[in-house]
């Protein structure tokens, strides 16, 4: 497949990917750093490059509500937001998943207030981790674009039928021009394909009821039915990734591995910090330190069995969390990873880093590798640590 090499920001790249799915409806409200993504999309529509009906709404709660209505009517639908915008969507975010509507959302990761901060961390996405969406994370503009193409196939698969959010780091990815390969429109369309809704509100021949009152007699059964979808999703994510690899040569899955095969020491993280870690891993590899990276791409469903298999037999694991779980036992990624590793007898610790867009630099990544060396040698390392903050 011949692909065009271009320079785009992450926001432009995801707008480009969503356009290629030919969505019927988009409903969004502007918020930094997502705004540019919808600017780009509005430009596609204004230029006649997209026929998407854009619904201008007065808030993110309305954006998600409009998206749910459009999707229940049978339209391929997307929205996009960040931080407080996602928080305002909250109630309806759950409804989208409960109704099994395959809406796609670009979530340009930004810290939650307060105090007000427009820069990257993952607290917005993590706050919604139990809402029932599939969470895909991206390292750079290329992966954001690729996730933006694959998201539709995963969401709309008949065994899944769940909304998917494509997470990419605010400013670090969203506003940085990056080199990436784009699929030609016809190839992307052939890969994504036409959307066949499972049900539609707009068929008078087959009237249905969506979102009725659901009390003590059926709510639990409906949630049980929803839970089953997350059991099926991992196989579909893998299948879509494999097909995407055949088309583009870019292979994804639940995670990317970097110099992991013989690694004794493993770093686990999400998002753009993977690039910095890869550089530092190279430096330590030259010194003979067997360190590798496990960059997770799917946080929901969390690939616990897969991760346990990969991390078994290592000498030490360190999880990097770009969000805090206040009052929790470490950040969300650490909580999940340690739970996945229950019974493995591999030492594991964690760092919370990069809150509110604090730079994650080479020195911080080196601190992580050295903490892994200490843990592997039997040294005492606290299980929850902070990185790059003035104490």
């Amino acid at each position: 497949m011949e692909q065009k090499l271009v320079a785009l920001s992450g926001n432009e790249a995801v707008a480009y990917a969503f356009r290629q799915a030919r969505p019927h409806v988009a409903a969004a409200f502007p918020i930094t750093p997502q705004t540019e993504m919808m600017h780009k999309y509005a430009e596609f529509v204004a230029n006649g490059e997209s026929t998407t009906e854009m619904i201008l709404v007065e808030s993110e709660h309305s954006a998600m509500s409009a998206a749910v209505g459009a999707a229940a009517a049978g339209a391929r639908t997307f929205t996009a937001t960040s931080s407080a915008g996602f928080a305002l969507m909250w109630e309806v975010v759950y409804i989208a998943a409960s109704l099994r509507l395959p809406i796609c959302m670009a979530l340009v990761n930004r810290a939650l207030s307060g105090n007000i901060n427009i820069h990257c961390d993952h607290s917005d996405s993590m706050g919604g981790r139990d809402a029932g969406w599939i969470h895909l994370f991206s390292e750079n503009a290329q992966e954001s674009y690729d996730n933006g193409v694959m998201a539709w196939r995963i969401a709309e698969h008949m065994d899944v039928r769940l909304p998917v959010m494509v997470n990419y780091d605010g400013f670090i990815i969203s506003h940085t021009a990056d080199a990436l390969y784009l699929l030609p429109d016809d190839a992307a369309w052939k890969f994504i394909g036409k959307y066949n809704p499972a049900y539609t509100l707009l068929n008078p021949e087959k009237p249905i009821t969506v979102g009725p009152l659901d009390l003590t007699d059926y709510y639990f059964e409906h949630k049980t039915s929803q839970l089953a979808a997350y059991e099926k999703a991992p196989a579909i994510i893998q299948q879509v990734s494999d097909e995407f690899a055949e088309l583009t040569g870019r292979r994804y899955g639940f995670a990317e591995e970097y110099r992991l095969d013989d690694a004794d020491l493993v770093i686990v993280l999400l998002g753009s910090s993977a690039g910095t870690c890869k550089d530092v891993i190279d430096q330590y590899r030259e010194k003979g330190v067997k360190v590798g990276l496990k960059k997770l791409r799917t946080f929901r469903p969390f690939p616990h069995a897969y991760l346990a298999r990969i991390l078994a037999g290592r000498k030490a694991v360190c999880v990097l969390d770009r969000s805090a779980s206040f009052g929790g036992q470490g950040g969300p990624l650490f909580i999940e990873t340690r739970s996945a590793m229950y019974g493995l007898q591999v030492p594991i610790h964690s760092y919370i880093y990069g809150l509110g867009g604090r730079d994650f630099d080479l020195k911080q990544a080196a601190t992580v590798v050295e903490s892994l060396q200490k843990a592997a040698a039997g040294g005492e390392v606290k299980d929850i640590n902070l990185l790059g903050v003035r104490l």
Partner: protein
Amino acid sequence: MSMINTKDLHEGGIIREAGNAAAYKTGDWRTFVPKFVAENCIHCMFCWIYCPDTAIEIDASGPKPLMKGIIMDHCKGCGICAQECPPAKKGKSALVMVREEK
């Protein structure tokens, strides 16, 4: 009404069978109940129009619909029918609310 198990439910909690409220019996919520006094009824159909549920039984087979009575499986005792029922027969209404004896 028999209970459906998880495996037989439609995904998303969607109800795909239209009009199935008729099978859902809700008549055990009420305290008061409308008593139908047939000789006072002028078959104006106000009760049928105003009933927020499907509790008014009518005979629609003739040229004009006839009020038949209350379907107790669906009546919640809200009293709207009795409120709207016109006192057309010498000041007397065909529907009066009385405390239900359980």
